[in-house]
């Protein structure tokens, strides 16, 4: 039974298995870093798309929305070819390192964050347009004001990006190489154990992964609640 088999993984947690903790720690480091990076790029882009009018805007919006569905393995492959020693960015020497994984995941989830931010900001702008225009708030100040006032909706956006990155295996497998103790994360470990036939362990690790993702979401929600009560 999968539930009983999952006990193996729980035993590992309970006994404080160092390797499991290292893998979970690396997974969180890679995905949280990627989310941060994607937010830095994606949120201003989303806000700009919401507020600016320029030729080709609609085409760009369709492109960004479509890019939400980029297959992780394809993103991984492209980043791999870029970062390989034989590729244009080979000099950086970061293939098969956690840095490459962070970059690949950040590329993967930037469209999600940009697209959802665009929608949130567009809706908020409809509400704020008169007031901000009357106060002559424009340009970067306008973007910053809207992003800050939308912060609670944007937390959900970040969680969406985080979830997508935490769940993917294709990109990190290819650019990380699943190196034991160095670039092995939860999802690649599950894939590896499955391919070795260790299905009980793989399922157990799957439950651990889901629990970790839920924990991050719970924390974010609690933070939002606290923040709302203090500054709503």
């Amino acid at each position, binding site marked *: 039974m999968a539930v009983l088999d999952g006990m193996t993984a729980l035993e590992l947690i309970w006994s404080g298995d160092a390797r499991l903790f290292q893998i979970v720690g690396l997974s969180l480091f890679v995905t949280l870093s990627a989310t941060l990076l994607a937010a830095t790029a994606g949120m201003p882009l989303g806000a700009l798309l919401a507020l600016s009018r320029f030729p080709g805007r609609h085409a760009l919006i369709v492109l960004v929305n479509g890019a939400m569905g980029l297959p992780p393995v394809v993103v991984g492959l492209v980043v791999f070819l870029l970062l390989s020693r034989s590729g244009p960015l080979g000099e950086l020497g970061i293939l098969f390192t956690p840095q490459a994984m962070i970059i690949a995941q950040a590329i993967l989830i930037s469209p999600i964050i940009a697209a959802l931010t665009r929608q949130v900001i567009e809706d908020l702008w409809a509400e704020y347009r008169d007031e901000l225009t*009357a106060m*002559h708030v424009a340009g970067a100040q306008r973007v910053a004001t809207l992003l800050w006032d939308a912060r609670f909706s944007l937390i959900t956006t970040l969680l969406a990006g985080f979830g997508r990155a935490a769940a993917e295996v294709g990109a990190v497998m290819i650019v990380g190489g699943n190196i034991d103790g160095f670039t092995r994360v939860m999802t690649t470990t599950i894939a590896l154990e499955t391919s070795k036939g260790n299905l009980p362990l793989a399922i157990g690790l799957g439950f651990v992964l889901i629990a970790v993702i839920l924990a991050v979401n719970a924390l974010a929600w609690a933070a939002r609640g606290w923040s709302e009560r203090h*500054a709503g």
Partner: protein
Amino acid sequence: MLASPMRDRSNSLPIVFQDVAYAAGRTPILSAISLVIAAGPPTLLLGPNGSGKTTFLRLAMGLLTPVAGRIVFASGAELARRRCAIVFQKPVMLRRSAARNVAFALKAAARAPEPATIERLLQAVGLASLAARPARRLSGGEQQRLALARALARDPDVLFLDEPTASLDPAATKSVEDIIVRTAERGVKIVMATHDLGQARRLAGDVVLLANGGIVEHAAAPAFFQAPATATTKRFLAGELIL
């Protein structure tokens, strides 16, 4: 002091509407509006719903562009409009405390958001004790007053108000009217839309009656209320519906 009473306000006033028209798509809203808003006591805009009062105010603030005619300011529109402020019928509170809303308005007006200034502004509208309260959790009347504080933070020469007490109870209405009167006494030109005749009687220096997108009458308050010039005005004052 919130505004310098001795300040020369001739940059922003008078505001001259020259045969201004506005349409939303193909629906005409205002036509042939010619009017001078001059320095002095408050100008009240009266008229039934849909008569174009809100559109008039938004045209004056530059939120809308006329489809015909011009709006002329003494010193040029761009400069003058920065010396104007507006309070909307349903003001939007920023997602932060009352004090920070005022600070935001100060910064937007290129004024230093100093705590002393913020406190004075909040005191003037009677919200000093609610400075730390999240603005979205204020009551309707309190939000209206905060919007006033934000507008006054700009130290405006002209303050436009769009039915600011329409959804308030009498007590809240009184406190808002008191603030408006005090502001007018300090030399700020008030241009206010209302459909409350009593309010117009209480506050107006001169009155503009709008109906069906046009100006029916523009007169000093005593003349308007006691000796109206047009039949429409008479019917309006008598409480009839103007179709």
